[in-house]
């Protein structure tokens, strides 16, 4: 059980890295509190696995420091870090039985026989593996094998953290839900830090109490699911979370006024955007509604998608694509309509980063 602190951490696979492009992981400082359920979310190739391997000690970072509860473990080997990790594809020891597989990490650390037995049976029970404990791992299905991999991660009672690297990729969709809720239940029960890597926003938002979003080797935002939704700190978070993603359009901002495609939008706060940067405003489709022509900003309607529970309008604001909700009862929309944005949910971004405004 530990608090994990990353200080000025960065990693490059090249020995002499100088330009930012050389870094698989760009400098970051981050603290993971003890007992948290974290999701590390990002698209393929954004550095999630690299970060995970650095925390578990499979990889020594080229720069910066990793500390567990204040103790520097940067150069400590995996074995001495007391970390459990579950991989994307099941890793089982073919020649061992399921029982021996689960007991393996405990026996390697010299745990006494009875305690091993009790612990193995407890975890096997939680994962519903009890009936196959005596079987050889070789002949099992991929699902069962991944359960064993999960079990080997969960079986050690004293770990600082358990890291999951997209562990449910090979699992059948129906079983995915079940296993994820099981992990969540185990997290509450064991009070252990869990870090769950995924590129699936649903998986991340349902598992974690804190979601860390990564993009291009950088942590762009760490926060609770509703924060990510309501106040994306980076345009990337806006795009990546939510379906469809946030509308982001170029704008010029001065004080509490934004100019978009020749239209003026009033902002609730005032901003002093730095010169020379790319300025954009972002509004989630959930906070934008279509109105009859003449109200709000004039837009061109491209099409209306019926999503079942709601309708979504695909619009053009000037030259920029825009998505907005269609309120019930608004029918017979022509080519031209109006767009109303909820003032509190308009964010201003400079070079992708959200600016905080003055009241």
């Amino acid at each position, binding site marked *: 059980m530990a608090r994990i602190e990353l200080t000025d951490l960065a990693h490059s*696979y090249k020995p002499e890295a100088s330009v930012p492009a050389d870094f*698989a992981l760009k400098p970051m400082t981050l603290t993971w509190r003890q007992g948290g359920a974290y999701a590390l979310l990002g698209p*393929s*190739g954004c*550095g999630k*696995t*690299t970060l995970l*391997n650095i925390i578990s000690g*499979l*990889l*020594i970072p080229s720069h910066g420091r990793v500390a567990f509860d204040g103790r520097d473990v940067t150069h400590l*080997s995996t074995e001495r870090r007391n970390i459990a990790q579950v991989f994307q594809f099941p890793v089982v020891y073919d020649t061992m039985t399921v029982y021996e597989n689960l007991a393996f990490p405990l026996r390697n650390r010299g745990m006494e026989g009875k305690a091993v037995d009790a612990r193995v049976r407890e975890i096997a029970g939680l994962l519903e593996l009890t009936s196959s404990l005596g079987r050889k791992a070789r002949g099992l299905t991929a699902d069962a094998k991944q359960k064993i991999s999960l079990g080997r991660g969960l079986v050690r009672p004293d770990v600082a953290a358990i890291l999951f690297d997209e562990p449910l990729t090979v699992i059948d969709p129906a079983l995915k839900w079940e296993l994820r809720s099981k992990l969540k239940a185990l997290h509450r029960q064991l009070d252990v830090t869990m870090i769950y890597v995924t590129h699936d926003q649903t998986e991340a938002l349902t598992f974690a109490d804190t979601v860390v979003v990564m993009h291009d080797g950088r942590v762009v935002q760490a926060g609770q699911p509703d924060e990510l939704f309501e106040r994306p700190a980076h345009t990337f978070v806006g795009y990546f979370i939510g379906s469809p993603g946030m509308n982001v359009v170029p704008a010029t901002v001065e004080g509490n006024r934004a100019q978009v495609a020749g239209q003026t939008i009033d902002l609730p706060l005032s901003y002093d955007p730095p010169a020379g940067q790319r300025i954009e405003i972002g509004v989630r489709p959930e906070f934008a509604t279509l109105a009859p022509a003449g109200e709000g900003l004039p837009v061109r309607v491209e099409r209306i998608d019926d999503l079942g529970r709601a309708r979504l309008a695909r619009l053009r604001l000037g030259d920029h694509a825009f998505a907005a909700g269609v309120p019930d009862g608004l029918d017979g929309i022509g080519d031209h309509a109006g767009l109303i944005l909820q003032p509190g949910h308009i964010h201003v971004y400079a070079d992708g980063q959200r600016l905080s405004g003055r009241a």
Partner: protein
Amino acid sequence: MSAETATAAATASSVSRARSGFRIDGGAITLTLYLLFLMLPIYWLVIMSLKTNAEITSGMTLWPQQITFANYRTIFTDASWYSGYINSLSYVAINTVLSICLALPAAYAFSRYRFLGDKHLFFWLLSNRMAPPAIFALPFFNLYSAIGLFDTPWAVALAHCLFNVPLAVWILEGFMSGVPREIDETAYLDGYSFPRFFAKIFMPIIANGIGVTAFFCFMFSWVELLLARTLTTVNAKPIAATMTRTVSAAGMDWGLLAAAGVLTLVPGVLVIWFVRNYIAKGFALGRV
């Protein structure tokens, strides 16, 4: 997706570097000693071929006092020597081509279909790879004399098919089984006929396997001598058999023997160089 794979590969390599980093390097010592053990006899052969016979017999020298190429000159100018190379290479080439052409359809059949007696047939083929050539020496002598092929490269090439064809079937079957059957089915749906599919789609896919098979056919035909010597006398005599000539009334011509030996290593080294990237998988006969 490709970016992810690249990251994963990079992770893997640097992880393995970290692993080998803290291992005590007993491994490197084992490997160095082993390679030394392999190279010493070859080194000895090579330097001996560069010595004069007087130097060889007069005392122990780790390096030739006076380098001579006379032994090699003898081989390249005397037709009875260099024709040995041509004979060897010609039957090896015939055998390799023959083995692969025959084995390709059979391996396809074994990897794609079940049929009456398939398992027994496969075993019987394999058992021929394991049969001692010594058993066949005499009957082959009779057989090829009877059909008039005795003392031609064809006799040796056909005789070597005895163990090379089964081996080729075995290796190719291993590689073909690694190719998903969906590829065949898709091609048939696209209107390919079997021969066209086989030549245009399937062969390029298992090109590595064919290369590995050719390597093995070459290897086993090149190194075999018992049958090659039994089935030839003068016209098709392989180089390896010619080497026994150095034992003459005047005593052993060690330098010449060594030079001929060195020259028999050259084709092998060349072939290995070409297949070096597939060698590990090849030696597992496509079955890893």
